[in-house]
């Protein structure tokens, strides 16, 4: 063990960087600086540009449009995207739903749904959590009753991320009320334009729109939209959540946040000197950078180990990665001093809960920072709360 990134990795990074520089439209990069809640049209535009190059869904099997890159190459690609402020791409379709489809769905279903995900034409939501079923997902109650060629779906889903952008929803439903909780669950793909579906936005702590509630009132769903086997939905969900946890380490994103934070700390002043020279600030920034370096290496270890270890490393990096996302966002707010307390939303953002018509005196480098820090309280909850992850670590790795 002597090397880190190989010469091939470095050449690959240069190729990716050159492509992004030549092809990322300036207005997308500008909005990417306020990097959360990207517009669907921005994500779709960038997906099309990447798809033309064959790079929109690197992790897919090559037969469905993937690149055949190694895990490390995908990591480098993601890192370069973040550093260039490319739009944060939709995660639900490409990273969560698609792997379930190309692993468990029928060939016909794959041919029907994967191309739209690849080109950014179809956006997906995932319908897992319910009001009474959060961490205890297996207790979910939304039911699907077979009626001829259809299932009829009735129930309620919540915390549906980016559901307001979505065309389709990948749902966990109960098809067997008699079986054990896990065994009675199936996975259905539902067109959100179906009759009987209503959506209610859930405004979050940042006064922004990320999550939604969906109500299903006897929604007819073609039985052909069942994924895999009836009653096997729980195993597909576990597969999907493991992917979600690995991704939620979000190292490239946190590294970019650190670059942004260092920029802020060079501009902002404390006692007439750049904040970057303040020993206490420096120490806290250094600690975040060190923990990120550790997490990055842990992720790269997982990516190169060549084995999917049933989620143990995934849980470990999810816990640390989600905490780091909060710490880096909080330190950025602190770096803004007085201006860190202002409500200051992305001027080009969509979906405002409340327009106050006010113009806070926040410099350009401070826009959206505080809102981001507020929203990041969710990182230690979504994808399975960190307490659930700690229990998983104890059971699977430590065998307690």
């Amino acid at each position, binding site marked *: *063990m002597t090397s880190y990134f190989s010469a091939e990795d470095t050449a690959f990074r240069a190729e990716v960087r050159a492509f992004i520089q030549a092809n990322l439209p300036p207005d997308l990069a500008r909005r990417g600086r306020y990097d959360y809640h990207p517009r669907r049209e921005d994500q779709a535009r960038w997906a099309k540009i990447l798809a033309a190059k064959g790079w929109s869904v690197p992790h897919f099997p090559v037969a469905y449009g993937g690149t055949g890159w190694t895990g490390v190459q995908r990591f480098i690609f993601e890192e370069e995207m973040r550093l260039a402020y490319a739009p944060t791409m939709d995660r639900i379709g490409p990273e969560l739903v698609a792997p379930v489809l190309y692993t468990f769905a029928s060939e016909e279903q794959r041919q029907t749904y994967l191309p739209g995900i690849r080109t950014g034409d179809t956006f997906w939501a995932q319908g897992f959590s319910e009001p009474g079923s959060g961490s205890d997902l297996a207790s979910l109650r939304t039911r699907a009753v077979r009626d001829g060629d259809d299932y009829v779906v009735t129930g309620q889903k919540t915390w549906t991320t980016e559901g307001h952008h979505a065309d389709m929803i990948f749902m966990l439903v109960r098809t067997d009320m008699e079986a054990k909780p896990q065994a009675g669950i199936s996975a259905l793909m539902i067109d959100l334009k179906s009759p009987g579906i209503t959506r209610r936005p859930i405004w979050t702590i940042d006064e922004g729109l990320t999550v939604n509630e969906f109500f299903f009132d006897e929604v007819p769903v073609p039985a052909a939209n069942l994924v895999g086997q009836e009653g096997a939905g729980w195993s597909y969900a576990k597969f999907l959540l493991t992917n979600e946890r690995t991704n939620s380490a979000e190292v490239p994103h946190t590294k970019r946040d650190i670059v942004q934070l260092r920029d802020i700390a060079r501009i902002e002043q404390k006692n007439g000197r750049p904040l970057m020279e303040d020993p206490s600030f*420096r*120490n806290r920034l*250094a600690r975040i950078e060190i923990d990120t*370096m550790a997490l990055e290496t842990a992720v*790269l270890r997982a990516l190169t180990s060549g084995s999917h270890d049933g989620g143990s490393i995934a849980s470990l990096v999810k816990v640390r990665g989600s905490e780091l996302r909060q710490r880096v966002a909080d330190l950025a707010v602190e770096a803004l001093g007085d201006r860190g307390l202002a409500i200051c939303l992305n001027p080009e953002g969509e979906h405002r809960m409340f327009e106050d018509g006010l113009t806070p005196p926040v410099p350009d480098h401070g826009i959206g920072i505080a809102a981001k820090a507020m929203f990041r309280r969710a990182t230690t909850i979504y994808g399975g709360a960190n307490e659930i992850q700690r229990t998983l670590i104890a059971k699977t790795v*430590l065998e307690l």
Partner: protein
Amino acid sequence: MDFSYTSEQDALRDSVRRFVEREYGWEERFTIVRSDGGYAPRHWAMFAELGWLGAGLSEEAGGFGGGGTENALIAEELGRGLVTEPFVPHVIATQLLAGIDGETAADLIGPLVMGESIIVPVLQEAAGRGDWRHVDMRADGNRLTGVKTLVEGAGRADNMLVSARNGDEIGLYLVAADAAGVSRTDYRTLDNHRVSDVALDGAEAVLLASGAQVPGAIDRAMEHGLIALCGEALGVMDAALWATRDYLKMRKQFGTAIGNFQALQHRMADMLIEVEMTRSLLYAAFGAMAGDDAQASTAAVSAAKVQVSTGGLQVGAQAIQLHGGIGVTEELNISHHYRRLYAIARQFGDAELHLARFAQARDQN
């Protein structure tokens, strides 16, 4: 990118692990640390014979061609057994001699690697509080005067490598352990390591190196020492973690194994995360040290030391807490894991020193 060890490195690890299992039982360890010198000379001879004393030294320098990775994995296995032989100081001494110009220095390395002579690094002073860059030891011509602290293995050394100041310039000197004007105050640190304060009063010295090369050479040698020390800490942390896991499965209270309690499971998960983050930073440091970017290397080494200083203490302290009363007893190794991690946290600079050193290297990178 490759995070796997080579077959040679695996063989080296196995050989150290076998030594610890066969030769360094818990009773044996106490006999040794309570003996007059606090060491077993036959063990050092065995280290030499098995090639460990040159495993992490380049062939040009007179070693067997390895580097920081070899030293760290030897130290990791020694850490598992809480071996007190001064391997880390040996790494610093050999790397320091290899890092400076001059035939005298080169000639000294061979006997060290063969275990035929022992030279200890004598760099640190009380006023530096762990920062080896603080040097008050004064050189007047070839006479040294001043006091160095926490010198490990001085009691059996033939020679000492001493940093001293001549005006604004730092020089590196060789002082015979039995030279006139050398006096030692020997004591044990919390972890049962034998150390000395070494006072020099006009002691005669040979100048090995001077000028601009010296501070950099000392820094590089200390980085090798730090990485070996971090490797050792990882071994101690890992041993404490899994010993605690085994205890939680075995110990019953309220009619059940206490490992079934979620509060304790979550504590264990946090300990595992600290261990894995330590391992990751060690790997990052191996990668950086193998590259040619000195600032990246400095940053990575200090990053690992910060993690060891905080995560090591956390794992050590929680291992005691989860053991309950038995964890604070002298008889159980858990208290000794903590004592070693407690000392390592401060050794060669605490978390605060290395946070600052990391930040400075990052600024220049």
